């Protein structure tokens, strides 16, 4: 609709302007010129974004691949032995720790945040929503280092008391901190997914005599399922890539975590702890870049899954 109006209007405008005097024509030419110019400026901006993405993949990938000049793929991916001083660069422990940390985080965060989303959309009165949504946004804005600091100064002493261990750091402390960090992300995105479920579904279910809980669990949850899963994956990308909050509470010891309360290390925390102490031209540095590249690939795959899911949802709609 807009394009029709636009073409007709610009044609009419052009014929009007062409018949007018020379000064007007100059103005017309200038307007047309800036119109074209800015179109290309905006296109250039978005291409800059693509360039940054290309730079990320190129620089991190290029350095990461160099790892395999000195050690084999199996050494890197299948060994748990990370002693760079002796030339062992097995990243398996970090990979597994990252996965289990993300898993535990989601176990804690998903029920709470999806519950919050249901509360906001289905149960709570309007004033409560108006109050809670900005507060959740506030939680997104708090710097990750502050979460880490709170975890270190408040959570870890508490955990030490509860568990009776000498050290509170480890997967559990990190998972609690991360869960609090990704809670608002998951809650707000699933909030939108749940609110997008058509009202008629709910009314049909109420007409059959369902209680509100039955409507929520048997009608709304399945209908909003894909959106909620997308929200969870979005939270996952945040949890996997988070660095500073994790570094402060995880203990930073390169070993595979067999216990919730033992100092350990994940991909991100290991990179940030070691990168500033290594030479550029060393296998150690390459291996750290390979770990970053791995993080990159994991988050790309997660984004791809969200995209495929949302496309399917659009097709079904």
């Amino acid at each position, binding site marked *: *609709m*807009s394009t029709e*109006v636009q073409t007709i*209007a610009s044609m009419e405008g052009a014929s*009007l302007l062409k018949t007018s005097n020379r000064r007007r024509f100059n103005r017309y030419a200038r307007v*047309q010129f*800036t*119109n074209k*110019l*800015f*179109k290309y400026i*905006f*296109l250039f*901006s*978005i291409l*800059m*974004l693509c360039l*940054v*993405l290309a730079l*990320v993949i190129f*620089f*991190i990938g290029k*350095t990461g691949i160099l790892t395999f000049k000195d050690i084999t793929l199996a050494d890197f991916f299948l060994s748990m032995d990370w002693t760079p001083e002796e030339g062992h660069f097995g990243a398996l422990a970090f990979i597994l720790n990252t996965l289990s940390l993300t898993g535990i985080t989601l176990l804690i965060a998903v029920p*709470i945040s999806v*519950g*919050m989303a249901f*509360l*906001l959309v289905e149960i*709570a009165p309007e004033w409560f929503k108006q109050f*809670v949504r900005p*507060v959740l946004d*506030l939680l997104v*804005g*708090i*710097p*990750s*280092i*502050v979460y880490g*600091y*709170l975890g*270190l100064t408040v959570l870890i002493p508490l955990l030490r008391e509860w568990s009776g261990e000498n050290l509170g750091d480890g997967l559990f402390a990190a998972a609690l901190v991360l869960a*609090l960090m990704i809670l608002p992300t998951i809650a707000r995105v699933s909030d939108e997914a749940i609110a997008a479920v058509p009202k008629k579904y709910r009314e049909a279910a109420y007409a059959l*005599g369902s209680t*509100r*809980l*039955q409507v929520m669990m048997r009608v709304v949850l399945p209908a909003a399922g894909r959106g909620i899963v997308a929200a969870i994956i979005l939270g996952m990308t945040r949890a996997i*890539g*988070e*660095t*500073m909050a994790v570094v*402060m509470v995880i203990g930073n010891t390169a070993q595979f975590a067999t216990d919730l309360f033992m100092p350990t290390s994940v991909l991100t925390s290991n990179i*940030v702890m070691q*990168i500033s102490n290594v030479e550029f031209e060393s296998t150690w540095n390459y291996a750290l*870049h390979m770990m*970053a590249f791995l993080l*990159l690939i994991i*988050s*790309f795959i*997660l*984004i791809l899954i969200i995209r495929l899911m949302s496309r399917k949802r659009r097709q079904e709609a």
Partner: protein
Amino acid sequence: MSSFVNTNRNKRAKLYNHTATGLFYLLGCSVLLLIFWMLYTILSKGLPDITLDFLTKVPEEMDAGGGIGPVLFNSFYILIISLVISVPIGVGAGIYLAEYAPNNRFTEILRMAVETLSSVPSIVFGLLGLAIFAEYFQIGLTIIGGAVSLAFLNLPMLARVTEEAIRAVPEELRNASYALGTTKFQVIRTVVIPVALQGIITGICLVAGRAFGESAVIILTAGLSTSGEMWDFNLFSPGETLAVHLWYVQSEAIVEDAASIADKSAAVLVFVVLFINLIFRIPLWLNNRRMKQR
């Protein structure tokens, strides 16, 4: 008269329903309590002891009583440079996606790139900055390196918030403007951007708040030290920011009052982030209310 039969099954369903409602409220209130307790803990531990001296003095390596002057200054300096770089590009990209992008495969790829870029972990941008500035240009850890890397991190989010804000502008406004014979860019400049400005500014504040507290990028690109002077505008001096300072004090500093400095730094950090997030919204929010009352 009611056709509702009070069988056991119905009673059970009602009981579950009421219990669940109660539990949902309990959950919501505990989360809210947790959030406010957290904010209270950070702010109450640090804010009361903050003096002007603390905010402007140079940090001490050995003795107690150091301040956070240079790091606080660096935080704002890096934030502003990064915004100067990223806002025009990010907003431009958002405008392209909302107004120009045709519905084809090329646009699909662009969108994919923006989404992918926004999922890139911040530590990876730190490594990128390290590779470009420390390794390729050989200038070491500097303010400019930190600011550019931070700008990379801001870009995708800026593009997204701008696109959302512009998509919310009603189509009629554009058509009315086209009917007056304007070009596409004139419509964007005189109609779309003024209407979407509130959304765009809110988005920029969100991004600025996040960038102010970002530490993983800065720690790798701007370093763990300052030049030791207040008001150092040199782009090539090391640029430790407040968020990084909090990390440094907590993990490596040897001064005796490290814990109190960390408490105060955390409080200042949270206070500034809240301030950036809230203060810019208040005039817009008031404006919005006035518009609604009319």
